[in-house]
């Protein structure tokens, strides 16, 4: 794993990928700070946190989507998979260098509240650093998700689309939750068309029928459950909790108010684990030659 880690790190900083992702994150932070803190005359750095998180999401997508498709494009995939390294080693050899970039981005972001608090005494450095910590923890989740998508996907574009769809879904969930009652009145045709659309999109992104079916099933299950048992409080309660858990941007509002929400940090980091496991399984399947042309 160490050899893969070193090679990836060198490749990230030997090309535009690593520097470009950092530049993008800093650019988003700079624009956000300029608009909110400088022009808006706000002394609260944590007000930027949602924009920083979105910047981190975009940056992670660009940083990670190409992790495995690049090997395919360069036809080095076989050499990589033939190495006497465990599948987890291959996956983390790809993920960890990207986390280094994410953490470097976090360290650079931390300079904003530090400098602001030195220049303007009314700026709370602690609150700002808490917000940066939240963005870093989200960055870990985003990077694991994006590398997982890239392990499944044939192309970087496909991986990025799948990753962007997951992030967008997570972002939209809090807005969709109040309208979940409308699911009970969905016409039967919608119960077929919506999963079909999700399945087709997933199939297009990953070029894999099984993943298409899985995506369709994931969309179909809550729709059908709510459609059939929407009046059952246990069902609605379960769906609400599931939507809340998947809405990763939601706890940012606490950080913006200066609260260090440790459970949220733990939740984000633990949510990265299933993506890591899925990514390792994808690598293992490819190594065994079962799913060569995912």
């Amino acid at each position, binding site marked *: 794993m160490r050899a893969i880690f070193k090679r990836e790190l060198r490749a990230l900083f030997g090309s535009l990928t690593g520097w470009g992702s950092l530049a993008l994150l800093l650019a988003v932070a700079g624009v956000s700070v300029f608009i909110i803190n400088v022009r808006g005359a706000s002394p609260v750095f944590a007000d930027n946190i949602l924009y920083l998180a979105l910047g981190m999401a975009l940056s992670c997508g660009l940083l990670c989507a190409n992790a495995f498709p690049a090997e395919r494009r*360069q036809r080095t995939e076989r050499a990589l998979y033939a190495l006497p390294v465990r599948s987890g080693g291959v996956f983390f050899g790809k993920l960890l260098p990207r986390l280094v970039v994410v953490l470097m981005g976090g360290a650079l972001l931390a300079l904003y509240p530090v400098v602001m608090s030195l220049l303007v005494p009314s700026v709370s450095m602690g609150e700002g650093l808490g917000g940066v910590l939240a963005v870093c923890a989200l960055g870990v989740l985003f990077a694991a998700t994006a590398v997982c998508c890239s392990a499944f996907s044939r192309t970087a574009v496909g991986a990025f689309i799948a990753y962007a769809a997951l992030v967008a879904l997570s972002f939209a969930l809090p807005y969709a939750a109040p309208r979940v009652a409308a699911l009970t009145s969905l016409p039967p045709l919608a119960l077929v068309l919506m999963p079909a659309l999700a399945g087709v999109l997933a199939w297009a992104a990953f070029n894999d029928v099984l993943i298409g079916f899985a995506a369709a099933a994931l969309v179909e299950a809550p729709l059908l459950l709510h459609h059939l048992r929407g009046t059952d409080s246990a069902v609605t309660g379960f769906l609400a909790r599931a939507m809340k858990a998947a809405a990763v941007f939601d706890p940012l509002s606490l950080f913006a108010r200066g609260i260090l929400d440790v459970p949220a940090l733990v939740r984000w980091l633990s949510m990265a684990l299933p993506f890591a496991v899925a990514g390792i399984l994808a690598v293992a399947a490819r190594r065994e030659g079962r799913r060569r042309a995912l």
Partner: protein
Amino acid sequence: MIKVQNLEKSYEGRKVLRGLSLTVQPGEIVALTGLRGAGKTTAMDIMAGDSAADSGTVEICGVMMDGETSRARQLVGYVPAEPPAPRDMSLRAWLKFLADARGLSAREASEKIDAAVRLLGLQDISEKSMRGLSRASLQLASVAQAVFFGPGALLIDEPTQNLDPKEIVALRAALKETAKERAVLLASTNLTEMCALCDRVLVLAEGRVVSEGTPDQLHQMTRLADTVRIVARADEAAVRAALSTVKGAEVTAVRAGAGEVEVDVRMAGDQREALFRAAAQAGVLLLELSAARRPLNDLLESLTSERLEGSREEA
């Protein structure tokens, strides 16, 4: 050793491999030849562990590819028709990475890399970025990588494509050296080059071996039994007149130039002596008299079609 038994593979309902079986011993260079679509690349992919067979077994140095894919893959050096091209890395850096990942010490890695680079004559390009290398250089670099990391077997798909004659000579020498310790299997459509490189040639058609032999045996098969080639120092009319005196001899092709004439004569049975005497009596100076041969690559096509027709009739 590479041992393949009853390999079967279908793509979208079309059978690509139909019970392919072959064995390559260590120290042997074997060619798998056939026309396009014969199943060579599919077979190589399966033997390298890049693709799974529908049925049948692949054994590399006693390790089954189906049961222990990762271990078996580590024994095979595979050069696909499209060689790998890691961007932003030199060949030496790429080999160093592979050596590091395999846990080789820096000294051991350096010695092995030097040996692989020297074997293929890649000293001049080993420090250059692989992004800018020609396809031929990438092909040789890929062979160096496979030689470096394929301790049990070496598989090369289309080994001579993109290579110029000088590079083919270097590759040939490298393969001879490499084959001392491992089994080497090459796949190509070019039977002529494979006969120059290999100890044994297998002809593949529609997913099965339809013919097999040493290069010498294949050269013998190119001999046209009923045709003799004569090269004489005389004009065409004199040669024709001399040959017309031999009963049953028919001139099928004439090539004249620089005071010499080359004639293909078809006849029933072996009449070389009669031809010689006829030419001598007519005062035609014979420079050569030999059995006519067809090009080796034509043999591939005829072998394929003959055997397939035969097997269809049997079916």
